[in-house]
Every structure is written in C-alpha cells, then in structure tokens.
C-alpha cells in the first residue's frame, strides 16, 4: 500500500498537467477553424485533397498545382459556360468573357468571338483581345503549356484581333465544335493575362503566384503545405463577368482538404465545412439523419447530384467473344438492375437504359421522347421476339426502398422518374440462353463454350476501394453472370493501373464510363466525336479517350459525320443524338447502368440559396466544377455567428 501511495504521488503532477491541458482546450471552440469572419466565409471541400505544389497557380502548365482549389472556379474565366443543369435564370448557355455565342463561317474553318467590354484583371488591367491572341499564340509555340497546347496546335492555324474586342480564329480544318475548347463543362481553356506572362522568359516555368485573376475573387492566402486555399472577393468584382448575375455573397471562400468521408461528416455536423464534395451513400444517409441544417440536390432520396456521366459495363468489343451484339444483349439480359442499384448505391442512383446520362435536361431531350420507342423495341433471340424494356423499373426500385426509407422515397411517378429513373431491361435468362446459342455459343459440361470451342470467360475490371460504388456494381454483375453459368469474375486494380491498361484495351470488361455530356445542352459531340472509327486503335495499340469499348460502326460514323456538318444549336443535332441512342440500344456495345451520383452535402447554418433539383436547379452544386461559381451570387448569409 505504501508503494501504491508513492506511485500515486509520482503520477500526481502528470495528472495535473493533463487536467490543465484539457481545461485550456475547453476554450477552443469546435467551430473556430479559422480566424476569418465565419459568417462571411464559405468553407468548401476540395476533393483533390492536399495539394503538393501549393504555390503553383499556372493552370496552363503540366500538372500545375491544384485545379479545384478555387483557382478554376473563382479565379479563371473563358468565353462560354454550359450549365449541366438548368442554368442561372434558366439560361443553360452563358456568354462569359464573350458577349455573344461563337460566330462560324459557312464551312466551319473560321470562328469569330466578340468579347465583353469593361472587364478587368484583378490588378486593374483591362481584359482585351490582346490577352486572347497572346494566350493562343503562346500555346501554339510553347509545348510546356501542355494542358491546351495539343488542342490549340491541332486546331488553330492563326489567330488575330481586328479590334480590341474581336478575335478571329482561322482553323486548320473544319471544326463545328471548336468553341467547345473554350466552353466550360467542368473546365475549359482559360485565358491568360498577357501583361503578366509576356514578362516571363518561359511562361510554362512561371508559377503565377500570386495569380492575377479574371474571376470575381483573388487569392487571399494559402497553406504552403497545400491544405487550404482562401479566396477573397475582389473590390472591383463589378468588372468581372459574374457581376451580370449580382454581387457574390461570401467575402471569403476557402477550399480545404477535409480528409476521409467520416471526417467530412463530423466537420459538417460541427458546421466547420459548408459544402462536402462527395460522400459514400451510407455516410450521406447518416448525415441526413443527424443534421438539422443539411440540404441536398434532391430533398429526399437519392439526395445526390447525378453528374452528366454514365457508369456502364464497357465491353472490349475488339475481342472475338464480344464482337456479336447477340452476346452483348445476352449479358445485358442477365443483369438485374434493381440488385445492381442496391449493391452500388444502396438504391440511391438514377437508372438509365439509354447510353446518355439521365441527368440535367437529358430526361427532356432523350428519355421522355424515346419511352414509346423503348417499349416497342424488340429483340430477336432466334427462337422468339421479345419486348425487354420494363418502364416500371424505377417505380419498382422506389417500392423496394420505401419500407426502409419511408417518406424520403418519392411517390409521385414524375419525381420517381426524375430521381430514381424510368425503365430498364427485364432480366430474362431464357432469352439470354437463346441469344448465346444464336451466336454459336454452346452450353456443355456445365460450361459455356465459344463458337471456337474455347471456354467463355469474362473478367470485369474494377477499381476496388478507390471507387467502391463501381466495384460493388461490377462484383454483383459478375455474380449474376456466374449464377447463370458463365465463368465470370472481377479483377481489382488501382485507378492509376486502370489508367494505363484501359487505353491499351487490356481488359475483357470494364466498369467505368465512356459517355460524358454537357448535361444542359443536347449536343453529344463532347464525347461522341472521338467514337468515330477513324480513331479506333488496332488491338494492342493505344486508344484515345473516350471510346474505351473500341467499338466502330458505319451507322455511328454516319451520325457523327452529320453532327460535324451542323451547327451546335441546330435542332437536327437532337434528332441525330436520338438516332445515336437508338443505335446503342440495338447494338449494345456497352451496357448503360445508371448516373454517376455525387453525394454533395450543403450546410445551411451560415449560408442558404444552394441549388436543388425541385425548386431552383440553377447549377450543379458539386463544388469542383468551374460552373459552381454561380453559387456565389445565389448564396445568402444567414447572419449566424
């Protein structure tokens, strides 16, 4: 006992020290993450995490610093923006640095841009055609400006400025979509301040720190270790293109590395993080239960914002086993989309039978008009002709979810169609068997054999934990194919390994996407032009993005060639887009699954006015999109301290 007391005496100072520390820390309020006035500061999650070369703001050079640190959202600007949703004031197309849409000559070999007057850089120098000409000419000659040097070199023959506010591009060959280079969908080619860069011996080696901005904000400060970047509203914000929509509300916007999903949830519950970029479905459900100040894109299920991107089963169509559309259709008819949706997103996704994302204005452009065609669409299995489209699939998923999530699940059919999706293909193993047999496959000794007698094996390449949603979907699909009797399995690789293998066609089947659209505008050339057969690599050779399925079709080529000859806003573009969607259903070179949902969570303690699907879908709330800049003028401070 004596020893015990002695020990306690020895430990007493230590206990007192710990007690004093805890008392001291009590004074540390959880919400005090910054010395900036919190009610004037918007704190945003940057999905890039910690930026390794934080002091590098030259966005035109290779791997230059972070992009979604606020640099591209608040500091940069270019000619035009297309909103992935409805756009501010219901205008999807936004003339930003340009005062008008692009003006092409008849054969699309020349594009004229009229510039907005009265805009200034953050150091007060006026933005003029000289900046544009400099930006293009520097990119023509400087290979180090690698982000856009290739696109400029391939397209631009010459650029000139007939006057201070007009720029004329002469192109090397006709290109009716050349303006896409300067039209923001997530990002685009940004304009450089000539008066800053022309002083540098090599603009590609200049760190551009601090950046002279053309956006409504300027850099306030940043963490040299790359953890946070703070932007401050410019005093002369009226001289920026965003001023057309009003004054940006937050005086400061801070983009932070907020760590793993669990920490993001805690930080938002502590009101230390106003916008979370993305969460897992489970984390979002937890936050929805616990936070009283949370708002999301959809008020209830599935909460997330669907990106204009389409996760799909991508076949390597150059492999003999997938060359026949009957085989691809057989595999599609073995998928139970309800189970895949539950496995991937716990039901929180928008299913898609068409090869365009069911998001933005695309339900209006593509899904509504093609519903009847889908219902009438038939497949000839060789033994029977079947209607496979089930228009009630979205409704069935909603019914499946209702017992677990109750009132969060919409009951209005229109709301279900918009948030959970419309129809998909009914699983039909009998038809799948017939289609495989029609393609010359045989079921012998408990195994499926290809027409050449070799075993029919399928490996689905997935990204593992890096994209668990897709991995879960891929694993379930492999299981469904296996249950049917196919030798199917998944193969897990990291995303950087997939980046290397995908262009080489080093896979059977890939869970990923090769379709990305504007979201707000029906034109499909953003991804579709690269699907032309002229760009399909030979087996083993490197394929250019985005035709990862390496599929070519004379019918598709015709559609693409027609799109190339019409203007961006020509109504015929939508007709051709719908032709593409029908062709994809007939040929099934990829199996579209669902939208890529981003679980963006917004906290209303300090700010309100975030976009939402039901009442004000003015933009994509996902904060790494450059389009998210318009949120700054729509947000309103609550006055909370």
């Amino acid at each position, binding site marked *: 006992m004596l*020893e015990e007391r002695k*020990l306690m005496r020895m430990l007493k100072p230590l206990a007192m020290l710990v007690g004093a520390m805890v008392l001291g*820390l009590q004074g*540390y309020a*959880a919400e005090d*993450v*910054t*010395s*900036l006035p919190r009610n004037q500061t918007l704190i945003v999650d940057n999905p890039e*995490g*910690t930026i*390794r*070369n934080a002091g590098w703001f030259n966005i035109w*050079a*290779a*791997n230059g610093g972070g992009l979604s640190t606020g640099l591209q959202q608040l500091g940069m600007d270019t000619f035009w923006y297309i909103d992935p949703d409805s756009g501010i004031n219901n205008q999807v197309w936004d003339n930003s640095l340009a005062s008008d849409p692009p003006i092409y000559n008849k054969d699309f070999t020349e594009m004229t841009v009229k510039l907005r007057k009265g805009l200034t850089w953050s150091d007060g120098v006026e933005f003029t055609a000289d900046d544009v000409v400099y930006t293009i000419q520097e990119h023509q000659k400087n*290979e180090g400006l*690698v*982000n856009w*040097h*290739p*696109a400029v070199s391939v397209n631009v023959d010459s650029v000139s400025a007939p006057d201070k506010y007009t720029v004329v591009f002469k192109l090397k060959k006709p290109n009716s979509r050349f303006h*896409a*280079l300067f039209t923001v*969908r*997530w*990002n685009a080619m940004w304009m450089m301040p000539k008066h800053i860069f022309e002083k540098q011996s090599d603009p590609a080696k200049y760190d551009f720190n601090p950046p002279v901005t053309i956006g409504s904000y300027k850099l306030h*400060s940043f*963490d*040299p*270790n*790359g*953890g*946070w970047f703070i932007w401050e509203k410019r005093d002369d914000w009226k001289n920026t293109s965003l001023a057309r929509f009003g004054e940006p509300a937050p005086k400061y916007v*801070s983009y*932070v*590395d907020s*760590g*793993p999903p*669990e*920490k993001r949830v*805690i*930080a938002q519950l*502590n009101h*230390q993080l106003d916008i979370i970029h993305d969460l897992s479905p489970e984390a979002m459900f937890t936050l929805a239960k616990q936070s009283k100040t949370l708002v999301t894109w959809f008020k209830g299920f599935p909460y997330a914002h669907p990106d204009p991107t389409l996760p799909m089963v991508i076949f390597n169509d150059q492999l003999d086993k997938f060359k026949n559309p009957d085989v691809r259709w057989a595999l599609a008819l073995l998928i139970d989309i309800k189970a895949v949706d539950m496995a991937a997103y716990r039901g929180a996704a928008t299913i898609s039978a068409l090869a365009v994302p069911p998001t933005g204005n695309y339900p209006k452009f593509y899904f509504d008009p093609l519903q009847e065609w889908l219902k009438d669409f038939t497949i000839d299995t060789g033994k029977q002709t079947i209607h496979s489209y089930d228009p009630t699939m979205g409704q069935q998923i909603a019914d499946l979810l209702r017992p677990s999530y109750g009132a969060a699940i919409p009951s209005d059919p229109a709301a279900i169609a918009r948030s959970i999706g419309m129809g998909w293909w009914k699983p039909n193993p009998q038809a799948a068997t017939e289609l495989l047999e029609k393609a010359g496959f045989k079921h012998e000794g408990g195994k499926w054999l290809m027409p050449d007698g070799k075993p029919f094996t399928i490996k689905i390449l997935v990204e593992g934990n890096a994209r668990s949603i897709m991995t879960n979907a891929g694993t379930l699909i492999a299981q469904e194919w296996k249950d049917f009797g196919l030798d199917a399995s998944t193969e897990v*690789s*990291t995303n*950087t*390994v997939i*980046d*290397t293998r995908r*262009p080489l066609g080093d896979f059977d089947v890939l869970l990923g996407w090769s379709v*990305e659209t504007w979201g707000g505008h029906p034109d499909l050339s953003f991804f579709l*032009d*690269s699907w032309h057969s002229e*760009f399909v690599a030979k087996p083993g050779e*490197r394929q*250019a*993005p*985005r035709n990862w399925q390496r599929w070519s079709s004379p019918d598709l080529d015709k559609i693409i060639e027609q799109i190339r000859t019409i203007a961006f806003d020509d109504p015929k573009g939508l007709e051709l887009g719908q032709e593409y969607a029908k062709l994809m259903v007939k040929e099934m070179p990829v199996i579209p699954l669902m939208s890529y949902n981003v679980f963006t969570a917004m906290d209303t303690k300090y700010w309100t006015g975030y976009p939402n699907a039901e009442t004000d879908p003015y933009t994509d709330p996902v904060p790494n999109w450059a389009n998210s800049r318009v949120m700054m003028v729509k947000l309103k401070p609550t006055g909370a301290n």
Partner: protein
Amino acid sequence: MRTILLHILRRFGQFVLVVFIGINLTFLIIHISPIDPVEASVSAMTAFSSSQPEAVELLRKSLRELYGLQGTLFDQYIVFWKRILVADFGPSLSAFPTPVSTLIGRALPWTVGLLLVATVLSWVFGNLVGGLAGYYRNSRFLKLAGVIFMALNPVPYYIVAFILLIVFGYLWPILPLTGAYEMNMQPGYRLDFILSVVVHSLLPILSLVLVGIGGWFLGMRALVSNIVTEDYVVYAELGGVSRTRILASYVMRNALMPQVTGLAIVLGSIFNGAIITEVVFGYPGLGRLLVSGVESGDYSLVLGVTTVSIVTVSTAVFLIDLLYPLLDPRIQAG
C-alpha cells in the same frame, strides 16, 4: 585500435551495401509497376475536358518528353544514379515541375516533429511504467495499466485514430479535426502559430502514443521481471539499498539496453512517415507524400521518399552498431 577501425569499416561496408541494394530494389520495383505516369496524367487531364484524339496523342508525346521518360530502362537507371549521387531526385511528375527534394523538404519537418514526439513519449512512458510494473508486481494500479496497454497494443492505430476523432472532434469537440495548423494562419516562429501546431498535433500524437506505448511497456516489464531475480539485485535488497535506487540504478539501467536499440531503429524509421495517421488527420507529412506518389505513378517522388527512408534507417542501424561496444562492454568489437 586496429580492431575498432576494422569494426567500423566492416559496418560501413554493410551500410553502403544495404543502401545500394535497397535503392536498386526500389528503382526496379517502381519501374516494373504497371502504372504509367504519362497515362495517369493524360487520364487526369482529359477526364472532364474535351478530348480530341489527335490532341491527346500530342499530349502523350509532350508529357513523355517533359517527364524525361524517353530511353531504355538502363538509360533511366544511369540518369537516376547520377541524380542520386548529388541528392537530386529530379522534378516530381505529379507536381511538375516542383523538385522532389523540395516536396520532401517541406514534408519532412512535419513527419519528424510528429513522430519524434510520439516515439519519444511512448518510449519514455512505456519504459517507465513497464519498469515500474515489472518491479512493483503487486501494484493494482500498474496491473490495471498493463491490462489497458495490452488491450490497446493490438488495436490498429487507424481505429484508435477514428475513435479519438469521434470523441474529441465530435462528441466533446475540443480538438481540431484536421491539418497541422489553423486555416488562414501563415507559418512562422510566433507563439500563436506554435500553439496552433501543438493543438493540431495532439490527436495524431495521442493516437500514436496510445498504440505505441504497449510494445515498450510489455518489453520493459518482461526485462525487469527477469532482472529483479538476478543475484546482484537480491544482494542489493539484502544490503539495504533503497528500492528507488535499486530500481533506477540496478534494474532499469540494465534493462534499458535492448530498448535503446529498439528506440534507435524506430527513430530511424520515422522518416517513413506515419501513413495512416497522416491521412486520417490531414497531416502534411512524408507518409501522405509517399502514398500520393504511389497512387499517381510518380516515379521520382516515390524514389525520393524511399531513398531518404532507406538511408536514414540504415544510418540509424549503422550508428547503433558503432555505439554498441561503447555502451555495453560485453559486446566486443568485431
């Protein structure tokens, strides 16, 4: 004297050999990795943007030239060694054109600061309490401490980290969740900055100490338990030497030798960084840098961090080998 010189030379030879083999292995492993940094960059740069196939081809070519990835593996190996010998790891491919040495230099103080404090604290407390527990075997308090440390020891430290985050970041939010210092604070030798760094380091340090302390505790308790039965300890007790003096001068001092070796090796390995702790707490150290390099296929960065780690661990072992004969005369040089 000649024997000592021979001993030093032999150990130095081993040191050089270990470093050489380690660095070569790293070079080989990285270059047989299935990740192509150019394709990783192409993918990142074209993921969201318009991507004309002809332009992407040109992009690939430009990046390959820019990253200096032309030539055979042997050519790259020669360039690599030329750079290593002058401590130049070249530019980081994923944070181009920032030199790898700059990135390492920026991350190193944070990792060393965090792990040095955590390692020394766990070593001191683990050994102190372990020594006491081995000597005062009937103390209920020390028995309880033993149970707690043994229970914590096998728990993966990311679990401890998340529990601490939930307790001190959410349920009783008195500590910051992330980063190395407060947002909007510029680093400098000022009291407010130093205080901010200390407060931000408490949770990461606590998570490392709680888990790390158990190993030292168990080792020391076992060592002391053996030593207390030695004749010279029994003789001292019979001779009326005070228990405090026996513990400090006769028991702990003798038991410390293997623990000092362990400490040196652990101190050497702090240059590896504490990957999970740094990721969970958003700490800007070497571990996170290494992971980001691996994920992005950044050869130069991975080679740089790994080389620093190999050299420091080997140096620590080399120094221990040299110091051992001085510390413990029972060990003869050679």
